C-alpha cells in the first residue's frame, strides 16, 4: 500500500521529520527520485533555483552534510554562501539570533543550519522569513539524513511499509536515530533499536520503535540494519566501559549479519569507526549501501530545496 504523496509541503521550513505528514514524506521521496536522475545526466544542472540564495550556516563541524547541500544547491543553480563558525564563538560574541538576522538582511531564500544544540533551527524559523532547513541540531533531528536513508531503502526494496529496520548504537546522543525512527514508523516500517542500556534514552519507545537489549534480537529477520557512529568524543568513560567491549557486544560483524535476511541492507550515516561499530568486511561487503546513501543525500537535499521553494512536478530542464 503506497502512501499518496501530498501536493506540496505545508510548512515554510524543514526543522525535522516530526512535523511532516506521511504524504509530505512521500512527496519528498518521489521528488528526490527525479532529482537523482539529474545527477546521472552529463550536464548535472537545472535552473530550478536560479536567482535564489542559500546560506549554509554551519555552527558545528561537518564535511559530508555541508558538501552534500552545496552540491545540491549548485545542481539547482542556486547561489550558495557558506558560513562556518564554531558554536563556541557564539558565547564570546554574536548570538545565533543576531548572526541569523544579519544574514537575513542580505535577503537569502534559505538558511541551512547545522548546530550543536537541539532546537536552534526552530528558534530561527520562528523569527526569519527565509526557509530554515535543519542540517542536524544537537541530539534532536537530522531530517535530510532520514530522508536519504528512506530513499535508499525504497530504491533497493521498493517500499518502506512492512520493512523491518534495525538501528544499532549510541541512541542517546544520536539525532540520526530520532529522525529515522519518526520517519520509518510514520511510513509503516517496523523499527527495532538496540544499544548499551546506558545509552538508551528514557521514553525512546514513544518515538515509535521497539527497544531491545541484545543485538541478536534486532537482527533476526531484519530487512535493513543501520549502524550508528559511536561518538567517543562526546562522552566520558561512564557511559560504556571501552571500545573493545563495545565491539564485543554491539559491532556488526559478518557472523551477526547472517542473522538478518539474505538481502538485508547495511547502512551507516558516516563517518564510520571501522572496527568499532562496524567490521570492515561488512562495511565493504556486498550488502553495504553506504556510498549509495551519500549519492541519495544530494538528491534528497535537492528535493527539499526545490519543494520548499514552492516547486511541484518535474523541474524544468534547460
Amino acid at each position: 500500500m503506497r502512501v499518496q504523496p501530498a501536493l506540496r509541503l505545508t510548512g515554510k521550513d524543514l526543522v525535522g521529520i516530526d512535523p511532516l505528514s506521511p504524504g509530505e514524506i512521500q512527496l519528498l521521496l518521489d521528488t528526490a527520485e527525479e532529482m537523482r536522475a539529474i545527477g546521472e545526466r552529463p550536464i548535472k544542472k537545472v535552473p530550478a533555483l536560479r536567482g535564489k540564495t542559500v546560506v549554509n550556516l554551519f555552527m558545528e563541524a561537518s564535511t559530508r552534510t555541508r558538501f552534500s547541500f552545496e552540491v545540491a544547491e549548485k545542481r539547482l543553480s542556486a547561489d550558495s554562501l557558506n558560513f562556518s563558525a564554531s558554536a563556541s564563538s557564539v558565547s564570546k560574541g554574536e548570538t545565533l539570533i543576531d548572526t541569523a538576522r544579519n544574514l537575513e538582511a542580505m535577503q537569502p531564500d534559505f538558511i541551512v543550519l547545522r548546530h550543536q544544540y537541539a532546537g536552534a533551527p526552530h528558534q530561527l524559523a520562528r523569527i526569519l522569513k527565509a526557509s530554515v532547513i535543519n542540517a542536524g541540531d544537537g541530539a534532536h533531528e537530522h531530517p535530510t539524513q532520514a530522508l536519504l536513508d528512506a530513499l535508499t531503502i525504497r530504491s533497493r526494496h521498493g517500499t518502506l511499509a512492512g520493512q523491518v529496520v534495525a538501528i544499532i548504537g549510541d541512541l542517546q546522543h544520536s539525532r540520526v536515530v530520532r529522525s529515522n525512527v519518526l520517519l520509518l514508523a510514520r511510513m509503516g516500517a517496523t523499527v527495532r533499536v538496540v544499544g548499551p542500556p546506558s545509552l538508551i534514552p528514557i521514553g525512546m519507545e514513544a518515538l515509535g520503535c521497539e527497544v531491545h537489549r541484545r543485538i541478536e534480537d534486532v537482527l533476526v529477520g531484519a530487512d535493513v540494519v543501520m549502524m550508528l557512529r559511536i561518538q567517543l568524543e562526546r562522552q566520558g568513560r561512564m557511559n560504556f566501559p571501552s571500545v573493545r567491549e563495545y565491539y564485543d557486544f554491539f559491532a556488526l560483524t559478518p557472523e551477526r549479519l547472517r542473522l538478518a535476511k539474505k538481502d538485508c541492507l547495511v547502512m551507516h550515516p558516516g563517518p564510520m569507526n571501522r572496527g568499532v561499530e562496524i567490521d570492515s568486511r561488512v562495511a565493504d561487503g556486498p550488502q553495504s549501501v553506504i556510498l549509495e546513501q551519500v549519492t541519495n543525500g544530494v538528491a534528497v537535499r535537492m528535493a527539499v530545496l526545490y519543494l520548499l521553494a514552492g516547486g511541484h512536478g518535474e523541474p524544468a530542464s534547460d
Partner: protein
Amino acid sequence: MSRLLIRHARVVDPSQRLDEGLDVLVVDGAIARIAERIEDKDAETLDATGLVAAPGFIDVHVHLREPGFEYKETIASGSAAAVAGGFTAVCCMPNTSPVNDSAAVTEFIRGRAVEAGLARVYPVGAVSKGLAGEELAEMGEMVRAGAVAFSDDGKPVSNSYLMRRALEYAQLFGVPVVDHCEDSALAAKGVMHEGAIATRLGLRGIPAAAEEVVVARDVVLAELTHGHLHVAHLSTAGALARVHEAKARGVAVTCEVTPHHLTLTDAAVAESSYDTDTKMNPPLRGPEHVAALIGGVLDGSVDCLATDHAPHHADEKALEFDLAPFGVVGLETAIPVSYDALVRRHKLPLRQFIALWSCNPARIFKLPGGTLKVGAPADITLLDLEARLTVNPDRFRSLSRNTPFAGQRLKGWPAATLVGGKVVWRRERR
C-alpha cells in the same frame, strides 16, 4: 495618628478561622479592630466591596539580583513587582554578587528595601561562604543583621557533612536551612525534565531522581540533627513522598512548591518549540508529578507556595535552549496562576489557599505577619476573585519578562496591597 478603614471586605484570615463580611480598622500601621460595622469619621476609607481581605501574602523564595545583577532586577523593581503581584513580603536568595554571606550584604539589602518602601524584604543568607560549599558562612552575624533563613539556593549543598553542620548550627538561631535539592552529577548538565519529551526533543534530561536523592539525604540529616529543613521548590512525586514520610515520623521538615510546577508540564517545552521561558530548575516535570504536587497541596503535605522568581534579561534568554539561563519570573503571575489552578480547578478551599501564601510561610520562616489579629502589622492583600485578566509581560514592574504564562487569561487577581497600613499598590481600572 493615621487611620484607615477598610469597609465591606470579605475577611478571610485562616489564623483566626475568619471568613465573613467585615470592616477592618488600621491605626498607625497595625490592625486596631475588626468588626461587622465600624464607624470612624477620622479614618480614611477604602471601599473593599467585592474584595477579599487576606493576611499579606509572603513569597519566601525570590531572586532580587541586587547587588550585582541590577540589569535583571533591583531590590526596588523586585519590591514593586512583589506588591503589584499582591505580596507584602518576600525572602530574597543570597546568590547575588557579592554573595549575601555576610552581615554587610544583609544590611545593604535591608537598607535598599527600606529605601524602596514597598514590600518587606527578608534576606536569606548563604549557608556557605561564597556559595562555594566548603565553609559555613557567619550565620549569627547575618541573623543579627536581619537574615531569616540560610540557603545556597541556585546550587545544592552538595557536601553532606556541611549540610549536617548547617542544620545543627542554624538551630542556635531557630531558623530553617533551605536546600535546593539536586544531585549535580545525576542532573548531568540536563536542561529539562528527563522523559519521553526530552528524548524526542533531543535535550539532555534532569531525572526526578536528581532531586529525590538529595531530598532523601536531607531528610535523614534533619532527623539526625533535629534541625529544621525547608525543601525549596519541590517538584517531584518522589520528593513529596520523602517529605511526607519524614513528617509522619516527626522530622522538622517543610516544603514549598511553585505555581509553575503546579500548572505546567514538560510538554510546554515541546509545545512552545524550545521557548527558553519554559527552562527553569527544577524543570517542568511530567503530568504524574504535577498531579502528585496538586494532591500534596490539597492534603496539606505541601506547606506553602513560593515563586522562585528568577528574573533574567531578554538578551540572556534569547539564546539556544542549552545556553539560556534557568529561571522564570513569578511575582506578578503567582496569585492568578495558583488561584486559577488550585481553587477554581481543583476546589481547594479559599481559606487553605490563603494560608499557603500567608500564615504558613510566616510560621515556617518565623516572620511577623501572616495574620490579621488585632495588634499585628497591617500587611493586607486584597483579592478580586472575579477579575479576569490576561497576563501581559509588557506591564510587569519587574525589569524582566521571562514568563511562560504570557497571554494566558486567568481569573482571580490581587486588587491592592497594603504594607504597614499603607496602600503600596492598587490595580488601576482601565
